[in-house]
């Protein structure tokens, strides 16, 4: 299985891609690596940080694999796309072109993960509308406590630079 390394604030974690479950999504993600940006903490989905994709890194992928029902575990990494029609307001941390269309890696770093409004409100999931895609494509296999603390720090200290790149070790 291919692996991705995430670097955040001097720490790093390694994830294994789910090549045998969602091969097309994994290929698409692999092909845009490395990606870097300012990671932002979730407001709806509990212990999750997001790495935004934009410019020539943006991915607009169809759904792949089994439909998910909000059962996200710590360590899960999800490809997430939301159409501009789903958004209200703007994501001010992102560049003007991509403040309403969201394409990102959703990184669930802690327990409990994936709760909150995102999981509890069916309309918010975009279910049955094709306006939102959420594909679990990787899981952490080595996420040391200092990396997880850095993820949580984003909530308290604000945006931090996050890099995702191929792990060639």
């Amino acid at each position, binding site marked *: 299985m291919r692996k991705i390394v995430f670097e955040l604030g001097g720490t790093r974690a390694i994830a294994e891609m789910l090549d045998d479950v969602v091969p097309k999504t994994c290929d698409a993600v692999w092909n845009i690596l490395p990606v870097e940006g300012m990671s932002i903490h979730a407001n709806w989905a509990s212990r*999750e940080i997001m790495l935004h994709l934009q410019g020539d890194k943006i991915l607009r992928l169809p759904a792949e694999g089994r439909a998910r029902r909000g059962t996200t575990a710590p360590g899960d990494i999800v490809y997430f796309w939301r159409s501009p029609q789903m958004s*209200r307001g703007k994501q*001010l941390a992102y560049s003007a072109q991509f403040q309403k269309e969201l394409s990102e890696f959703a990184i669930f770093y802690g*327990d409990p993960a994936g709760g*909150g*409004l995102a999981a*509890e409100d069916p309309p918010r999931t975009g279910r049955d509308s094709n306006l939102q895609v959420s594909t679990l494509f990787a899981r952490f296999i080595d996420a040391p406590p200092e990396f997880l603390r850095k993820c949580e720090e984003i*909530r*308290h200290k604000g945006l931090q630079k996050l890099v995702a790149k191929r792990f060639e070790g």
Partner: protein
Amino acid sequence: MRGSARNSAMSRKIRISFPNDGASATADLLEDDAPNTCDALWDLLPLRVRAVHDIWSGHQVVAHLDKSVVLQPENVLTYLPMPGDIFYYYRPTHYFRGAPYGRTESAELGIVYDRDSRPQGPRGPEAVNLFANISSALDQFAKACEDMIYRGQKEILIERVE
């Protein structure tokens, strides 16, 4: 009818500020609906505490109170708050798995600054004591709240308006 309209014009008011941002709003206490909560929190003022953006509930910031501030449920039917609503809630010992941020129990204030929000925690939607509603300067205050998504936690000051 909104709580702020339902309560009399003579209700007590509180000022909520982000001292480092210069943002401030005034809220009316909902004394008819939550008299005990209003009294208890009024007696704590002024309060200067750290606030952080919520990660479960949407457009909401939370401020942790001392865990000794344990109030009984009151006016708890509102689980779909409006922008400007301010509420108290308490999470008892063993509510959390482990001790996030060193807490095994928690007394908190929640401030809703935009729509599409619902008080929620690790166990799902929360029943909260809705006790105040911002009646002026919500727009400016909301911007300072949203800014916490990008800049992290801030100090918040809550005072009596005499």
